[in-house]
């Protein structure tokens, strides 16, 4: 026996009346509360969230920087020291870090047939 269909997922074009009704009891709307949580965790978070930073990251997807000249010069300078290894986010271009061949992901070899066709 089927459960009753959901209710209240449709809202009139005047907006989030359902949401507002729930919020009347709360001081802070959920989005703002979440924002406060985020800012508490990351105090240095920029003020322009939807702006350039996100978009630039999106546009830079797939960018891998490796300059063999830089790499060899850095290696020569730091002959006796370890080269700095990549940070947690390998996709971000950072000024001080010299990418190494080990940092670059492996090129993929030829692929097998899709399992959907199996």
């Amino acid at each position, binding site marked *: 026996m*089927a*459960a009753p*269909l*959901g*209710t*209240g*997922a*449709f*809202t009139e*074009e005047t*907006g*989030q009346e*359902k*949401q507002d009704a729930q919020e009347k009891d709360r001081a802070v*709307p*959920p*989005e*703002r*509360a*979440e*924002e406060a*949580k*985020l*800012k508490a*965790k990351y105090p240095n*978070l920029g003020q322009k*969230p*939807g*702006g*350039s930073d*996100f*978009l*630039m990251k*999106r*546009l830079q*997807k*797939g*960018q*891998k*920087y*490796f300059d063999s000249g830089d790499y060899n010069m850095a290696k020569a300078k730091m002959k006796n020291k370890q080269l700095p290894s990549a940070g947690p986010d390998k996709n971000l271009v950072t000024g001080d870090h010299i990418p190494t061949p080990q940092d670059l*992901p492996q*090129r*993929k070899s030829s*692929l097998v*047939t*899709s*399992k*959907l*066709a*199996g």
Partner: protein
Amino acid sequence: SLAGFGSLMQDVLWCFSQVKGTIDTGVTEADIISTVEFNHTGELLATGDKGGRVVIFQREQESKNQPHRRGEYNVYSTFQSHEPEFDYLKSLEIEEKINKIRWLPQQNAAYFLLSTNDKTVKLWKVSERDKRPEGYNLKDEDGRLRDPSMITVLRVPVLRPMDLMVEATPRRVFANAHTYHINSISVNSDYETYMSADDLRINLWNFEITNQSFNIVDIKPANMEELTEVITAAEFHPHHCNTFVYSSSKGTIRLCDMRTAALCDRHAKFFEEPEDPSNRSFFSEIISSISDVKFSHSGRYIMTRDYLTVKVWDLNMENRPIETYQVHDYLRSKLCSLYENDCIFDKFECVWNGSDSVIMTGSYNNFFRMFDRNTKRDVTLEASRENSKPRAILKPRKVCVGGKRRKDEISVDSLDFSKKILHTAWHPSENIIAVAATNNLYIFQDKVN
């Protein structure tokens, strides 16, 4: 009974039909399905994956002996569409992931589809071969060349039947036209042209010409520091070959008319819902980014999907949508962690049913949602192996948002955010849906009798 009024959602009981793919404990990244699309008759169903492969399923002819096996989909063809590439000039790694597949309407015995990755669009021809010529004079049956001086008798080669072979061949490669990443392709109703859209530009192509394309939209600012929005999706009007829409990361939709100018940077219509400034937060713009835009089959409406809602807009009303449906509003109080795990950037798609009366979109935990535009009722269903007995009726699911959780409800904190339904497809005329759940493809049909 309301049978005379078309397929109202409460009359439809969705049943499991088929599932494709393996039950692996770990998912190979290449197997993640990245696009699903029925062709215009619903006879064929294509999937693309992260590994650059396309698999096409064909619906079997209905059998009188097995009326409840209402035309199952079986593998028809599979091929490697795109390979990984590295652009050495720009130090850019180009994924082979198939972002979109779009079918061309069928004009002869062969099937044609467009498939695209981030940079290159390809036109594939899928055709059947069931005969082959035999009896050549200059080569024998194994293909070895015969010595012409040894031939004393001439024969006429004849066509003989052979086992059916389905071949996929790349007929056109449309490359080097996109600096940024292609998010959409759309075939025009003139069947002669199509468009491809990346983050900042939209190009118009003629199917016959691969070394040229017209740039019809360019929103790249002169100074990239001034960049405030990107193009997220684009589609041609289903009937008017001069009209198309594109959506943005700021939650707006622009409708353009190619008759007005060669470069359609100035829109003919601009759709935007006014925002309540008191509701604005760090997340507002991110969750308003439109991840998909689809014209209704009628061409009268457009549907957009942003992170938490699906909206239907009337082309004649630009200042607000006519309908807004909450997909998973309970996530509003989880935005902080969804931002931290990047889920807030997930791009969900949305689809219309054949009669434009019901819309469908995916969510997390392998849930997907349907909204009936006429009755305003909605349902949440789940694609899972547990509900995968043949013709098993899918039981509606419910997320508990606080307070007492009923026995068969699931709490928001128990949702699996790694199980996302980003891609779904609805058969053009029947109640058959295809739902991509990571590396598995589920096919559901409405109950027969």
